[in-house]
């Protein structure tokens, strides 16, 4: 019996195995090559940006990052203003988006009637589906005039006169500027942070919350002392994810930031960002050094977002493992 089984496999199986093995190998190699391609693109982006920007880095050295002049006529390029504008608008975006996103996540996991949770979370996620150029156009034609007419005069009169923070909020109420851009960016990153927050909030093990309830906690105390501490690293990961998005957002910011290469303390003044400068000027760059400077800006943007997104991903991996263990 045993012998017949052995001869059966030896006689007929190898031929099946052989033809299968060749095709199997080909299929395996094809999928592996596709996987390599993902790495190749990411590496290609980094290398081509570094290569394209080498002329600017060689010419200006560290002054490319610290220099405040962006003078096309004199071929002097210092990227301090766009870097500052990128960081400042992203900071404003996070100041708005983080509390709002956590509020939305809390609302969706604890407060909203069950039937409304699906539709509301889809609606919030649709904010991420709207193309950024639509945000930009709406920002330019609708939101910037609204800011200029209703919000910025009020800021001028009330916060602009205060000590310390006054200079941030004084300036001509023209609607186009860092504050407007920051708010639009904030709206755009809300869905990214909110969806991660909602996911991890609802993954908190029920016994933890139940013990807090048993100890007599209010709902706020459950959030602030159980849910948030338990999900802290994921929430920080989500914030970094939102930051990565905000830093690299191009079209929306290009419309409402004003493309000005002057530095100003006031948030109401036009400024520039790395992505907006590239979008506005790249097709007009007529000299090698000019084009190289813009590509060098792209390199800086890529490196910074790469680091921020890596941190985000590492933090989110950790919570996934944690949640995986507790289940």
């Amino acid at each position, binding site marked *: 019996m045993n012998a017949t089984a052995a001869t059966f496999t030896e006689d007929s199986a190898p031929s099946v195995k052989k033809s*299968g093995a060749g*095709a199997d190998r080909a*299929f*395996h190699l094809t*999928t592996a090559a*596709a*996987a*390599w*391609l*993902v790495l190749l*693109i*990411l590496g*290609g*982006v980094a290398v*081509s*940006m570094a*290569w394209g920007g080498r002329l600017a880095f060689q010419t200006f050295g560290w002054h490319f990052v610290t220099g405040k002049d962006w003078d096309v006529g004199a071929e002097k390029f210092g990227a301090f203003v766009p870097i500052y504008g990128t960081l400042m608008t992203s900071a404003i975006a996070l100041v708005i988006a983080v*509390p*709002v*996103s956590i*509020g*939305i996540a*809390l*609302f969706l996991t604890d407060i*909203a009637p069950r039937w409304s949770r699906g539709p*509301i979370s889809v*609606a*919030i996620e*649709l*904010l991420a*589906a*709207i*193309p*950024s*150029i*639509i945000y*930009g*156009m709406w920002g330019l*034609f*609708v939101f910037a005039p609204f800011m200029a007419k209703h919000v910025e005069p009020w800021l001028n009169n009330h916060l602009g006169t205060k000590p310390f923070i006054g200079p941030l909020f004084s300036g001509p109420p023209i609607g186009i500027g860092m504050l407007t851009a920051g708010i639009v960016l904030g*709206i755009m990153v809300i869905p990214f942070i909110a969806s991660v927050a909602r996911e991890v909030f609802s993954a908190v093990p029920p016994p933890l919350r139940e013990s807090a309830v048993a100890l*007599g906690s*209010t*709902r*706020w105390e459950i959030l602030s002392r159980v849910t948030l501490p338990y999900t802290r690293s994921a929430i920080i990961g989500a914030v970094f994810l939102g930051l990565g998005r905000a830093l*690299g957002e*191009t*079209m929306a910011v290009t*419309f409402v930031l004003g493309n000005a290469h002057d530095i100003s303390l006031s948030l109401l003044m036009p400024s520039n960002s790395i*992505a907006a400068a*590239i*979008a506005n000027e*790249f*097709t007009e760059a007529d000299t090698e050094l000019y084009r190289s400077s813009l590509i060098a800006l792209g390199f800086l*943007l*890529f490196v910074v*977002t790469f680091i921020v*997104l*890596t941190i985000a*991903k590492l933090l989110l991996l950790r919570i996934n493992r944690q949640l995986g263990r507790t289940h």
Partner: protein
Amino acid sequence: MAIPVRRRVADVAAFAFATAATIFGLIWLTWILWTTLREGAAALTPTLFREMTPPPGASGGLLNAFYGSAVMIALGVVIGAPVGVAAGTYLAEHGRYTRLAAVVSFMNDILLSAPSIVIGLFVYELVVRTAGHFSGYAGGLALAMILLPIVVRTTEESLRLVPDQMREAGFALGLPRWRVTRQILYKAALSAILTGILLGVARIAGETAPLLFTALNNQFWSSDLNGPLANVPVVIFQYAMSPYDEWHVLAWAGAFILTAFVLLLNISVRLLARKGKDR
């Protein structure tokens, strides 16, 4: 036992804030959609689909832009989707537990969120500079690179959801691994993979930044993929930033159609996916 007032107030305040935050989020959505609808519906005319983009001060349509966008999106899907499905298959099946798969899975998420303008610059350096001119091919390639990580992620996730019993059943029948993947796993995960591709289409349809330096724009009708190609997002960008009223109207019309397309695609894909899950 009554809860002290201070704790009760904190509780009520926190929940009022959460409700307000949600309303805050929804207000922006309504505001943006309402503006697009109001301005866009007023600008909708049949000439939009009959005439080309006009010079300043004249009236016209967006026919060449719609055509160019459709062609480049199709090109993006034709290049990006097969590679994405293959890479996703490696991550979930053939390379599962390998170090390469872990690294690619990690890096794919970074590519997914990387600034799309950088992809535009990359394709500019790679294709436009080498060829010496802007082209629809370059635009399609840039869109493919944006679509790729989306398809990789959804393919990987949907293949992982296929129960291991189905793989084991296939192996028990003596099928080689590639046939198990192709004939069993792809069939089981088909609708989820398609969902991913369609969501990717919704995403690349509105991408502007990667097209600025690759396809550029073209005021005239052109079906030549080897030259600059008109497309809806870049036309919206140029026309909205211009000082001409006629161009603003066309930009709103384009914005309305683009938004309607993207949102309808998103919502119907979600509904279909949910229906599939219920079955």
